[in-house]
């Protein structure tokens, strides 16, 4: 059996860690992916763990050629798109930004040099895939490879190094990267290079992407590629770069890059500038488009998540093969609206009388009597979950354990449509199943609730490395929790924030970070789903935080951020750290 059958793929939350075959087997292709397989420049936006790396990797030729989907096979067969994948990893970027002594020109030149080497390495990997796919005869393939690599290595070394295989040329590129860094270090220490020494890899000091284009030209001839063939350069994790690097990349988005097309992934608000080095900024829609991956519509969410689970389970060890989400978790009592039993003397109405405002209760009574259909929509649907949750939390302060954060629909919702988050949640449940003695299905609701609350707590804990972010999320979450558990309920349940254009730069930066990390989600305009709000907009709290704050994982009614800032918490804060976040309100916000 293939190795992947023995592996628990739920333990692999990061697309980087999947083998090529695992990636292909577990990939769920989507309209966003199809959009990317085009000759437009795209900037793919998505919070951490939203699947950007998976999309970018799947565009690369060696992955795409394995994807058993018609349009993908057609693209590969007809040589319409050839993708190359470059990861702009943190550790790679860390070697760029650690030279504060360089002036702007030197920094740019060094970035371009390193990116030239990195993209050429990516090209070599893609050429391996192309040779394997398009030249079936082994002998012929070896001959073509030898001739092609000889030409490319001659070009990339100005004739000083000639290689016959892709592997040898890859090693050469890896070596010159290291040698150049060492030469820079030596020059820093001693003030100069060694006698007679030149910097390594001088051909890569050429204009950005020029060595890559040369390689593509030679490959096009060797592989007989059609004129209309587009080379997709997928640059992953561009959020790790600086503004100056983005400006350089934008210059190439703006220019006519011929058969080279750019697919750049980054986190929301991390396309740092529209400027280019040509003096003219990028024009959205003309030079590039955003593709904002992320939360699907509620209707698509459950089916998509079920597919995610099933694909992983199918590619994992045998003990997971027959498990479905429903079997594992059962249904959610909180998320599934009960068939309406909202009669005047029902338990629901008793709870409503207890927890809501008098006008709300009176209105509910009138609607039930006079307009039962409206009552279903405006009362039952809106209040059902909130009432159950409030009661469950109240009762759990006694002896009863909380069991309300349970069920398939709850687990899915707490995943925020974020593949990495969902895989981790699933893994937590499966680990519990394997650990339990009786392996009973579904996992006990109280246990599910414990797992989700702990998961939620750990997610919030991670934000402590940014004191302001942690404090910000605590403040919002505590407010929403107070609204649900300490104040009379109204039909406008507060679960989202409304940010005005007067928000201070400092707080806006925190909001951006929260969106980047997937703890706040912009409520998007359906007419422009790929555009992010800037300094004014509505955001809902990541549903992953709902169990921790014991609030409903729903968008709810947006509340002005300024209202939240003025609120004095009614609940005890579970964890606080010092941070004068709201001491630095803008004058306008202070005056509100």
């Amino acid at each position, binding site marked *: 059996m293939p190795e992947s059958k023995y592996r628990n793929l739920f333990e692999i939350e990061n697309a980087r860690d999947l083998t090529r075959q695992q990636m292909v087997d577990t990939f769920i292709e989507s309209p966003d992916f199809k959009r990317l397989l085009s000759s437009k420049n795209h900037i793919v936006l998505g919070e951490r763990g939203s699947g950007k790396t998976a999309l970018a990797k799947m565009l690369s030729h060696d992955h795409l050629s394995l994807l058993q989907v018609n349009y993908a096979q057609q693209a590969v067969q007809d040589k319409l798109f050839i993708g190359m994948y470059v990861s702009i990893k943190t*550790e790679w970027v860390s070697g760029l930004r650690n030279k504060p002594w360089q002036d702007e020109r030197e920094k740019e030149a060094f970035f371009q040099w390193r990116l030239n080497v990195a993209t050429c390495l990516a090209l070599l990997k893609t050429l391996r895939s192309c040779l394997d796919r398009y030249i079936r005869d082994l002998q012929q393939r070896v001959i073509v490879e030898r001739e092609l690599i000889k030409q490319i290595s001659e070009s990339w070394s100005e004739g000083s190094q000639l290689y016959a295989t892709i592997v040898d040329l890859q090693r050469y590129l890896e070596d010159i990267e290291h040698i150049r860094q060492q030469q820079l270090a030596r020059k820093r*220490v001693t003030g100069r290079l060694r006698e007679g020494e030149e910097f390594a890899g001088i051909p890569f000091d050429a204009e950005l992407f020029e060595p890559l284009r040369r390689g593509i030209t030679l490959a096009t001839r060797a592989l007989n590629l059609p004129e209309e063939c587009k080379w997709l350069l997928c640059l992953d994790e561009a959020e790790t770069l600086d503004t100056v690097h983005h400006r350089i990349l934008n210059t190439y988005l703006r220019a006519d890059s011929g058969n080279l097309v750019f697919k750049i992934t980054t986190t929301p608000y991390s396309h740092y500038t529209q400027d280019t080095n040509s003096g003219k900024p990028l024009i959205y829609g003309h030079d590039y488009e955003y593709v904002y991956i992320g939360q699907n519509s509620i209707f698509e969410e459950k089916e998509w998540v079920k597919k995610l689970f099933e694909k992983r389970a199918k590619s994992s060890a045998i003990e997971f093969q027959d498990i479905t989400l429903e079997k594992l978790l059962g249904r959610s009592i909180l998320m599934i609206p009960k068939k309406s039993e909202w009669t005047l003397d029902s338990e629901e109405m008793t709870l409503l009388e207890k927890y809501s405002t008098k006008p709300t209760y009176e209105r509910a009574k009138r609607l039930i009597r006079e307009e039962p259909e409206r009552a279903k929509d405006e009362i039952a649907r809106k209040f059902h979950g909130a009432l159950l949750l409030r009661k469950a939390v109240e009762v759990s302060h006694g002896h009863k354990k909380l069991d309300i954060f349970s069920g398939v629909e709850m687990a899915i919702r707490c995943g925020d449509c974020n593949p990495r988050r969902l895989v981790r949640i699933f893994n937590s449940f499966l680990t519990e199943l394997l650990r339990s003695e009786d392996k009973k299905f579904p996992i006990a609701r109280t246990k599910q609730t414990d797992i989700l609350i702990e998961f939620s707590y750990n997610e919030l804990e991670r934000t402590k490395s940014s004191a302001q972010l942690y404090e910000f999320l605590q403040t919002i979450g505590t407010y929403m929790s107070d609204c649900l558990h300490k104040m009379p309920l109204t039909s406008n349940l507060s679960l989202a924030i409304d940010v005005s254009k007067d928000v201070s730069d400092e707080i806006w930066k925190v909001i951006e970070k929260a969106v980047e990390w997937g703890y706040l989600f912009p409520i998007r305009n359906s007419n422009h789903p790929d555009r992010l709000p800037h300094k004014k907009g509505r955001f809902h709290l990541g549903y992953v935080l709902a169990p921790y704050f014991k609030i409903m994982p729903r968008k709810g009614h947006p509340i002005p951020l300024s209202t939240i800032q003025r609120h004095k918490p009614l609940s005890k804060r579970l964890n606080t750290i010092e941070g004068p976040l709201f001491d630095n309100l803008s004058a306008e916000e202070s005056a509100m």
Partner: protein
Amino acid sequence: MKINKVTDISDDIQQKHYDVAFFACGYEQRSTYIPRLLNRENVNKTIVFGYKDGRTEFHREDNDKYFFNNWGQEPIIVGDNDDTVVYEQLRELDLKAKSELRVLIDYSTMSRLWSASILNWARFLTDSSSLKIDFLYAFGNYKGDFQPLIIEDILAIPGYEGSPISDAPSLAIFGLGFDGVAALSALDQLEPNIVYAYLASPGAAEDYPAKAKYCNKTLINHYVKDKLLELPISSVEVTFRSLTELISPHRGKTNIILIPMGPKPHVLAAMLLCLRFEKEITCLRVRGKRAPIVDVEAEGHIVATRVHFKPEEPSQEQTIA
């Protein structure tokens, strides 16, 4: 120069002779603990780097006066994230005609960028046939609560970039201290394929290992699990050797990244490992701020390590024709 040997040595430094000694002058009382143990007559040349920030905090003014009065040196002011001045001073050192060079570095309160710079200088030295650097570290008592680190950036130490360009899987080795959240944040950013960690045990205090495990429980429980090493804080030699053994099976197959966030002797071991296998390992530093600052007093114990460098064979150096 290449690292030939890393050994623990006696902390009895009173009688030892050095061609040059490097000290750091900050606000901690600990800044002058080791210099006070030395005999000034036994040191030919002294260089004292003084932190640009905190010049009126705690013991800083006293420490400045101490170095001036006792070592004839006004501290050379340097930003803690700046190595320019450090290299200027190093380039001015006149060490010709010394077949064996003996250097002392008191890194108790030294910025790791400064100590890394001195190590860079050592590896590119061509004037001597033997270089021995004695690293000294004084354990400290923190006179206040340990403040969490707020991360500003993750950078490779200059000269310790390794070669992370290949798409080989990445292996991250975290040196853990009390900055659990910062370590987790760094892990989130790096997203390595394989994660190991090590922490000091025995540590500077009896409860150190338990405290470090508690601070890093999420990272340990979810990412490291059984790949946690416990290494003595007082032996750089053992830590260096253990880390060498740890990476051995992964060399040539992974991009190895070291993120030492624990006590300074462990940071030193990590930097030395990176120098030893320079192409294969990236050594990162997590730059950030703590507030408020606290004073640290020396508690009496010293970790002493000797690193012996020898000239590199011509064939060992990689060049491009």
